Every structure is written in C-alpha cells, then in structure tokens.
C-alpha cells in the first residue's frame, strides 16, 4: 500500500550531493512528488525535504540508502500525521478581478490568502497551506483568468521535540545506524 511520506535529509553543504540523492530514487523508478532544499537551523547543514508516495517497505530501504551517502548526516521519514507542513503558492490573475471586487475580496478572505502585488494589468495572490487548500484557491480564482501559477514543494517540521543538534550529538556518540526501524532487535 502506498502512503505519502515526507523525507527530511540533513546534509553537508556539497556540490552534487542533491544529484547523488535523487539518483537513489531514479534508480528504483520512484517519482519525487516535491523537493525543497535550504539551510537548516544549524549553519552549514542543509535540509532537503522530499515527498514520495511509496510503500513502507520501500521507504525504509530508501532511507538506509540515503543515510549511506557519506555526506548525509541523517535522513528521517514521516507520515503526514507526524509533521507540520506547508506549501506556498503564488497566483497571478488578471487585474479585471477588481471589477468584481466583492467576490474577489470574499475569496481572498475565506481562503486566508493575501494580495502581495497589484499593478494595472495583474494581481498576485499568495497562499500558504496544504495541497488541498492551495488547489481550492486555484479553482476559485480561475474564474478571473489565471495568468500564472507557481507552487512550492513542501516544507515541514516534525512534531517530536528532538532538535537537530541533539541528533547531531547522538551521531557523534553513536553512529547513524540507530534509526528507528533498526531498533527491532
């Protein structure tokens, strides 16, 4: 059975490492649904957030393969219930929307979106939320004529209260093999 998993990977800052990681997916014929990369709360350590839809067996094997890469500090995977996650979307619509100002304002308000730019030709609306919320707003705004639409990958933080620095300390004391699915012995 397929489940949506969010993979968080903490890595050293290295050219090509993202390529090395995506190869692990490509080789197994697994599609990446979304991917983001940025510096984490620890300077010099990067965080990749990758979303895939696979079986539990596949995700556990993927994680060990990712963890095996020399410059990966640690890889985790979580189901949606274990994380707080958001995506951001930008919607560029025709300025003619202002001709139906009441309806337009209602949509913006009800969807907790905001206007980030207005010009004589277009309006840019920003929305953060989950995939469904972002899609709902897209459907609502489409009546005004969608000029451009861009959605980010997922960013996520985990619910458990263990910080990255705690993990890093553990890593230095033990080794990166003490991940949860190996504790069954």
């Amino acid at each position: 059975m397929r489940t949506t998993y969010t993979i968080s990977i903490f890595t050293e800052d290295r050219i090509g490492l993202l390529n090395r990681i995506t190869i692990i997916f490509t080789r197994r014929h697994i599609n990446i649904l979304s991917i983001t990369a940025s510096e984490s709360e620890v300077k010099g350590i990067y965080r990749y957030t990758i979303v895939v839809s696979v079986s539990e067996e596949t995700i556990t094997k993927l994680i060990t393969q990712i963890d095996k890469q020399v410059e990966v500090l640690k890889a985790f995977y979580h189901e949606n219930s274990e994380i707080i996650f958001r995506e951001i979307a930008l919607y560029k619509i025709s300025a003619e929307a202002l001709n139906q100002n009441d309806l337009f304002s209602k949509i913006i308000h009800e969807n907790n979106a905001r206007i980030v730019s207005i010009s004589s030709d277009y309006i840019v609306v920003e929305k953060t939320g989950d995939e469904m919320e972002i899609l709902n707003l897209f459907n609502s705004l489409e009546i005004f004529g969608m000029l451009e639409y861009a959605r980010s990958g997922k960013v996520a933080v985990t619910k458990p209260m263990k910080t990255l620095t705690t993990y890093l300390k553990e890593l230095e004391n033990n080794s990166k093999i003490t991940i949860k699915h190996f504790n069954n012995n």
Partner: protein
Amino acid sequence: MIHNKYNKEVTGAEALILALLDEGVKDVFGYPGGAIMPVYDALYDYTDKLNHYLVRHEQGATHAAQGYSRVSGKPGVVFATSGPGATNLITGIADAQIDSTPLVCITGQVSSQFLGTDAFQETDVVGISMPVTKWNIQVTNASEIAPAIAKAFYIATTGRPGPVLVDITKDAQFGKTVYNYEKCHSIRSYFPYPKINTESVKQAAALINDAKRPFILCGHGVLLSNAQNQLLALAEKGNIPVASTLLGLSAFPAQHELYVGYLGMHGNYGPNLLTNECDVLIAIGMRFDDRVTGNVNKYAKQAKVIHFEIDPSEINKIIPAEVPVLGDAKEALELLLPLIKTKNRKEWLDRFVECHEIELEKVINNAIEPTTEKIRMSEVIDKFYKQSKGKAIVVTDVGQHQMITTRYYKFNDTNTNVTSGGLGTMGFGLPASIGAKIAKPEKQVVAVIGDGGFQMTIQELGTIMQSNIAVKIIVLNNNFLGMVRQWQQLFFDRRYSFTEMKNPDFIAIAKGYGIKGKKVSEREDLNESIKEMLDSNEAYILEVVVENEENVFPMITTGAGVSEIILE
C-alpha cells in the same frame, strides 16, 4: 628529501603525488592524456618511489587496481585523463562498487574556466560516476587536492569499502600550493564502523546454541574484515557447517571437514538444498545476492536468520533478519565466540555428506574424470588445482569457466580467489590478474579465462609484456559464449543466437606480445602442459581446447528456489 616535503610550495600535480606517497601508495595503474599531463609530469620525478603500470585501456587500469586491492587489502590507485579516459573507467568502478573493492581513481579534467563549455575531452565524470562510486569530488584548486586525497583514501578503505573518484581540473594541477598532508581519520557525517549492539550478539548466541541445524553462510565481508580465524573458531566450536558465496571463497579452508561447499546458481548441491532445512541461518558479511538466493519466496523460510553485516542498508534488504548484528564481522564474531556452546551436530553434518555423495556420483566424478572425446573444463581445473595444491591465487573472468573454476578449484589459502561477482564483468580476468601479481609477486597467480572474455581486454597482454608481469593464463576455449549458449540450449530451444565465436590464433597473438604459450587439445598432454605453465618464470598462456557444448551443473534455474537445484 623527506624533511623538505612539508610546507614546501609545489604544484597541485606534485601535491597529488606526495599525498599518494603519504598514503603509502607504491603502485598506480594508469594511462596518460591531455588533462592529466601535469600529474604525469610530476610523476616523472618520483618513479623511484611510485611504480606506474601503463595499461592499454583505462578499463584495464581499474580491473588491475581491483585485482591489486583484492589480494593486498590496500586500495588500488588509478590515473586517467578526462573525457574518454574517464568514461572508460566506469565499468571497473561499477564492478568495484558492487563487489566492495576500495579504489581511488584520479581523473584529469579540463581547466575550470572550460567546465560546462563542451571543451575538448570534457565530460561530467563526477555526474557519470555518481551512481557507481561510494564518494566522488571535483577539485578546482591546488590547495584542495591533498585534503581531497586524504578523504578519498579514508572513505574508500573504511567500513564497507568501495571506489571513490577525485576529478582534478588542469588548472588545479598546475596551480601552486603549500603541501602539508594530514591524513583523514573521521568525517562527521560518516560512521563506517557501527558500534556493535551486545544485546543482539547475545541473542545471536542464544539462537545458535539452541539450534539443531545451524548453517553458516560466509561472504566477502569475512575477508574484508579479516575475520577468517574467528569464523574458523566459530564453526569449530559449534560444529557448524560453513558454505561460501562466490566472493567468500577462500575465507574458509576448502579442505576443512566443516566446509560444505559453495552457494548459489551453480554452487554445490548440499549447501543449496539444505539452506531450506537449516533452523538457524548465520549469514556473515554477505548480502543475499539473487544468484545465491534463487527465488526469495522459497528461500530459508523455515530458518531464523542472523545477519552479521557492516552496511545498515543490507539488513532486511532481501532477507529479513531475526537478529541483525550491525558492525565489523571480526569484532562481532569475537564478541560472539565466548558465548557459543560446543554441541555435537553430527546428524546435521551427515546430511551434507550425503548430499556430497550424490553430487559426486551425479556430477563431480564425471566432470573431473570424463570419458568425452574432448577435454572438459572441469578436468582442466581439477588438474590445475592438484598441481598447485590449492595454493595459487586464482583470478577468473565471467561465464562458464568462472563457475567451473570456483566449483572445482579448492581454495586452501586465505584470500586467493579474485573474480567479478556482482557486476559479472567479462574482461575482468586478464587485467585483474596483472594487479594481483603486482601486489603479490611471490605468489603463483593464475588467470582462468574463457575465449569470449579474453578478447574483451586482450590488449592488456601489452601491459604484461611491457612490465614483465609473470601471470599464468589458462584460456578455456570452447568457441562459444558458453554460459549464454547454455541458457539458449536450456531455455531458448537451442537457438544459438550469436554465441558461436570464430577465434583468432591466441598463441600467435601471445607470440606477438613476446609471451610464451601453448595450445592443448589432447587429454594426455594436459598435465604436462599445466606443469610447464606453472613452472614458467615468466608470463605463459595455456590455451585448452575444450568441449564446445559443456553445461555447468548443478543449476538453480530462474524462478526456482535453492532446494529445487537440479543436478543434470
């Protein structure tokens, strides 16, 4: 002048050579070209300390380095230029990756300002080699060369070993830097030796002590962690039968009474059949390759599996482990040994003896003393085994001859089997034997190669000639790509699609390279010819004309389980 070496301003190329010397490198296999010329120029001043072997194709350099590494335990070092030089390394690197062989490959690259411009002989070797290296890096600055080399050696040789590649741009090779070498001893994101969980060792011991029919599967990891003595002690203390994977051969003495043979598709009857009768399967440093397991759904379902393994990604990858013991095999076995109780398991061991009797009668006797008109491959190997007393380093290529050699040669000395296992690279044998002989010049090194594989890297006879490498080469010539032909016969209705080979006069080719050789086609000449080959002080090629359509049995066919192994 060693005292001047540190804090001396040198070129990046010279820094590379000095770094290799600081890593204790004595031998390098390579091939020069435009983008690595500064390195070769620097090497010119160090030929008294660093032996460079000029191969005839870069693939040969990687396989030679593999052979070197496998018998010496040290990483093999390769030099190649950019572009085609670099891409020619890929097969050997992939082979080293899947067979856990440490290699440090150094490639020249176009100058950094030309990167990404489709410059002459530019190729993205870092990108290309990424899926088949344990680690790789591109260096664009002279000062980064020494630290990159230090990391490269550390990563290649620690934990589960593997190939690494350092791509150095030409401007980095020309650039000036102050040389100051620091060996790498740790990387914060890399934990090559997992701390062994003593609880799992205790659980493993309890399972073994309770077992009536325990069975040890010994893999390459035993040799890589130098755990032969611990394995022997474990087997002897518990009276536990030991079988070996292809790459685990020579980790356990073949003549030992607890040694029950070789696993997998063309392995021995008993160890395959009885995999499905044991109650505890003790896998040590092996990864349940599909050629070992056959159909995994029919593999050792009745057994509790203990898996000693250094690479976390191998645990539960193919066969779920009841008790995984993560860590170095030697260290883990040392912890396990005192907990093992001596137990008489004669009844279980007798099962293997019974199976061996059956295999002797149905397969082996006829294979080593055949009544066929033409010579059979198996009798060649048996005679070679008897004459060399199982003490030669035996290098094989890939195919029928490989399965025959690993079946009929009894490896009595530790770490004497060199072959291409996971990748199954035809063309591996000849260059790998060159590397093995360079690493162990005092040992008899014999390559056994088929007529197909021999022609894939036959140009390395030039390396043998130029560097006077005294390897012995047995070419088992059946004028077929025999393994494919066997499959065509058994599963494709004898439709021999492009497997028949018209071969050149191998002895004339050898002569062209100044290498002695002899062609044998009569059984009565075989023993004497093998003796002549083994006695030769220089390289020697013995071509044996063998049965054209010999099949390798036993066999586990596709989709079949290990216990469905067929004998004929």
